[in-house]
């Protein structure tokens, strides 16, 4: 993983690939690398769909090694959704395969003339870029079937659906799972639109004949991995709850906490929550011959994902994630698991972010385009995206655009990106993360829910403003570092609680690279990443006034706690002072 593959999509005579060393980027991976390249090479004032933007795809520092959980990939660019820097993170097989092929990053640069469409194939013998007009507007599942026919089933694919080709600002980039299904997505921020603007439909990766990356100190590496895996298996969240129920185990608890936004953030509880909870999904999956415990990439030992079969026992989609279930469920007043699973499939197939897509549909419902709770209407609205109708293009451009087009006042977005499944009034810590993250409205960037609601890594009262800025700061720093390792963020539940598991993570990095990092170096890396991202956003025109929630969260209380967002602006402005 000591080289970068740069493909100039706008080169004279067709796209040209060249390999460079890591040079100034040496020692970086994942989010640290994507954000450094974007901040260092992309003019902050460029148009996100223009030739000056770059799409950077980077496995993490430990991807492609024998380390458990190391298969997360970072995809970065200037976001067409937020107008700021973006790192969108995905599971699937791509990170492991790309890392074994030796690439720390693929950078798509420039822009082809007209509407040319290409496919990129990379294996141990090199890189092939071919015109791919025949793949135009194929949904992800059909596309991957074609790639399987052509290249066999030992591949991993990174692709866009019709939404990406139409350059819709909620378009995602799909990564295939171990069964070669396009179920894992770098969903947020419209990264799919940037791939579409680069004219790349799919990147096919084949690591046949290549081995796992060798650590500097194999023995120490193996020992550290053993402790790491044991720590994940013994922790009740990573060893039991996540495997058994997946992320959607949160539906009941967040609803119980009065922080589960229903009907476009009107209420903090949804009457149909139990019908779409993780418990319900897990039971349905088991009954229908699916599986509530499945890995999104080989090497994941937590296995929070699952397989959702339809009523006839036929594969429909992967187990929808908590945020997906919320966005298409409670937010739209829908309590039918089968409808939600269908929406998840359609989102994956057309290639749109399930959060921005679901929130956009709820806003359309608020505006009277359909009724809250009408699952069939929701399904038809997502199908409009696939068809590329004007209505579909509006919805597929995400919540901010949809809210504006339909004249909705309460639009839950920060920096243009839809807020996910936690009401920032009832969980004040996540409000701080939504407001301040350089990524825009995002929960993973500083997952205060862990401490505010789940009592993981301590406890800070979710209903009070005190302590939330510090909590969000620490989590944002830790997350930026973890997102750079290729590790799945869910390791944090065990790492926050168990010092020996945290140490094992550091030992994995040290024994692999021959380094002497400690906890302090991890914090430093996180700070460095955030600083680079904030700098880019500043130059792109963001001020501290952009680090705020939409006004109504400060003025309209939400039941059952009848509370508004109370963290002071001046406090939030100090979040990045270090």
């Amino acid at each position, binding site marked *: 993983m000591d080289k970068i593959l740069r493909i100039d999509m706008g080169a004279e005579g067709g796209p040209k690939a060249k390999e460079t060393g890591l040079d100034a980027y040496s020692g970086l991976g994942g989010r640290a690398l994507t954000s450094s390249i974007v901040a260092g090479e992309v003019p902050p004032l460029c148009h996100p769909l223009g030739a000056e933007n770059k799409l950077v795809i980077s496995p993490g520092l430990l991807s492609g090694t024998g380390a458990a959980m190391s298969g997360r990939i970072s995809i970065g660019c200037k976001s067409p959704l937020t107008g700021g820097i973006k790192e969108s993170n995905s599971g699937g097989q791509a990170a492991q395969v790309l890392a074994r092929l030796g690439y720390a990053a693929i950078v798509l640069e420039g822009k082809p003339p007209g509407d040319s469409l290409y496919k990129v194939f990379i294996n141990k013998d090199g890189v092939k870029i071919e015109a791919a007009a025949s793949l135009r507007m194929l949904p992800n599942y059909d596309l991957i079937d074609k790639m399987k026919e052509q290249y066999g089933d030992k591949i991993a694919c990174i692709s866009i659906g019709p939404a990406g080709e139409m350059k819709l600002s909620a378009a995602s980039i799909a990564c295939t799972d171990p069964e070669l299904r396009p179920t894992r997505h770098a969903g947020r921020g419209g990264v799919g639109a940037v791939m579409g603007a680069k004219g790349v439909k799919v990147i096919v990766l084949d690591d046949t004949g290549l081995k796992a990356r060798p650590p500097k100190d194999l023995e120490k590496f193996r020992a550290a991995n053993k402790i790491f895996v044991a720590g994940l298996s013994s*922790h*009740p*969240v*990573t060893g*039991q*709850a*996540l495997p*058994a*129920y*997946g*992320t*959607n*185990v*949160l539906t*009941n*608890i967040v609803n*119980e*906490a*009065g922080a589960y936004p229903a009907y476009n953030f009107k209420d903090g*509880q949804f009457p149909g929550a*139990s019908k779409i909870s*993780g*418990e*319900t999904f897990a*039971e349905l999956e088991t009954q229908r011959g699916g599986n509530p415990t499945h890995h999104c990439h080989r090497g994941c030992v937590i296995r*929070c994902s699952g397989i959702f079969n339809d009523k006839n026992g036929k594969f429909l989609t992967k187990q929808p994630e*908590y945020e997906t279930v919320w966005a298409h469920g409670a937010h739209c007043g829908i309590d039918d698991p089968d409808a939600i699973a269908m929406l998840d499939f359609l989102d994956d197939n057309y290639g749109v972010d399930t959060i921005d897509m679901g929130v956009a549909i709820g806003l359309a419902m608020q505006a009277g385009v359909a009724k809250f709770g009408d699952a069939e209407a929701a399904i038809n609205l997502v199908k409009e995206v696939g068809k590329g109708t004007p209505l579909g293009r509006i919805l597929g451009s995400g919540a901010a655009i949809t809210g504006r087009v339909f004249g909705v006042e309460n639009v839950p977005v920060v920096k243009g990106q839809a807020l996910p499944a936690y009401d920032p009034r009832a969980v004040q810590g996540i409000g701080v993360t939504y407001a301040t993250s350089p990524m825009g409205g995002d*929960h*993973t960037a500083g*997952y205060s*829910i*862990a401490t505010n*609601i*789940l*009592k*993981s890594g301590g*406890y800070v*009262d*979710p*209903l009070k403003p005190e302590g939330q800025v510090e909590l969000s700061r620490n989590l944002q720093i830790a997350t930026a570092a973890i997102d750079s390792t290729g590790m799945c*963020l*869910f390791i944090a*539940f065990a790492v926050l609680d168990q010092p020996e598991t945290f140490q094992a993570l550091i030992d994995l990095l040290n024994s692999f690279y021959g380094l002497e990092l400690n906890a302090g170096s991890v914090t430093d890396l996180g700070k460095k990443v955030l600083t680079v991202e904030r700098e880019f956003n500043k130059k792109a025109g963001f001020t501290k006034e952009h680090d705020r929630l939409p006004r109504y969260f400060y003025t309209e209380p939400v039941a*059952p*706690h009848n509370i508004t967002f109370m963290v002071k602006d001046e406090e939030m402005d100090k979040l990045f002072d270090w």
Partner: protein
Amino acid sequence: MSETLAGPGVSHFFHRRQKTEDKTFMKITVKLFASLRKDRFAIEKREYNPGQSVRDVLAGLDITEGEAAILFINSRHADPATILNEGDTLAVFPPVGGG
């Protein structure tokens, strides 16, 4: 899975027995989630003597305090020591996570 008012188990017997000690019971809605539902129930309206705490309820259901990692009374975080009041809803979760 479904939130039925499940039939009486050992725990039901336990609070029946207590009923004989005091005639004015508190009606408490107890909700259990995830793995805690196994061999128990999803939701039940149960009766307890006034002054009883979350800890008493857990003991009656044979749930250890380690298993009951997250507790809510009426949507607010509670502790095992919290005393229950008539009409309260107690929700009990094992350690869970996601995101």
